[in-house]
């Protein structure tokens, strides 16, 4: 674990975290994000009922995963970070699901 540094050598050290990303990879992810942006706008204009919300959210999740996996380097950084990131979203799902579970089961009481 030598940390000889101070000179701007392009070589990396073991303790630097993930290696530099590839230029093509980063630009490829951006291109994919723009394709998904176009797709989500196109889907929004097609009447699909509840399918519109599902398509919107599915595309948003795909875009978010691209950003997290590649730009935020979850793919190549320490596995612990993937657990922390997943935990944040897991609690978000708990929050929304339990809120909606309450609302959905309460409506019949209100209207009866």
């Amino acid at each position, binding site marked *: *674990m030598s*940390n000889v*540094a*101070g000179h*701007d*050598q*392009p*070589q*990396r*050290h073991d*303790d*630097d*975290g993930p*290696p*530099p*990303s590839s*230029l093509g990879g*980063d*630009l490829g*992810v*951006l291109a994919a*994000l*723009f394709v998904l*942006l176009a797709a*989500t*706008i196109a889907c*929004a*204009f*097609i*009447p*699909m009922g509840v399918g*519109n*919300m599902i398509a*919107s*959210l599915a*595309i*948003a999740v795909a*875009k*978010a995963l691209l*950003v*997290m996996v590649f*730009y*935020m380097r979850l793919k190549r*950084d*320490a596995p*612990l*970070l993937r657990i*922390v*990131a997943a*935990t*944040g*979203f897991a*609690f*978000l799902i708990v*929050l*929304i699901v339990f*809120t*909606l579970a309450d*609302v*959905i089961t309460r409506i019949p009481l209100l209207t009866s």
Partner: protein
Amino acid sequence: MNSATARLAEQFDDVSQQREASTLGMWIFLATEVLFFGVLFAGYAYGHLLHGAAFAEAGRETDLVLGTIETSVLLTSSCLVALAVRAVQLGRQRGAAVLLLCTAALGTAFLVLHGFEYAHEYKEGLVPGLHWTQVGPSAPYKQLFYFLYFSITGFHSLHVSIGVVVLCVMAWRTMHGHFGPSWHTPLELSALYWHLVDLVWIFVFPLLYLLGRHG
């Protein structure tokens, strides 16, 4: 200046452990940010479930063109900041500083565009509490939508503003040789923060701007 060992705080065994602790701390902070915005999104889910038609009607009145441009701006800025981290890792500090300044400029452009959007909504009488001129049976629920719209985009813009300041500081520090291939943790963490701003917007855009477009 960019020596990794010189930056080693005494509580850590080595630079590797220090970097891991810093990155872990940042990700835990980002998880709390997800929940911060999550509460607003949960409110949105509640409103959408109970008053879907009014929400769709209100969603149609948001500015789709500006929203799309803002989304493109943020997606591009995320790519630029990822490239800035890459440039520092490859020892190209000057290029990294330029990329960081471009990212900050895109963030500023986002805020200016949002300012135009808010001004337009004010004129249209779509700002609950300040200037609300909507009438009709769905108006109270549209007000709920616009309350959420301004809360979510307002807090998001606050995050963008903080991000722009942080990116400018990082550009200045990169310019002055504070970071190099062996040590650039603050830059990495700032980039993570900026990506979070992008992540939030990725969900804001379909939920607020694309809602009810086919109706």
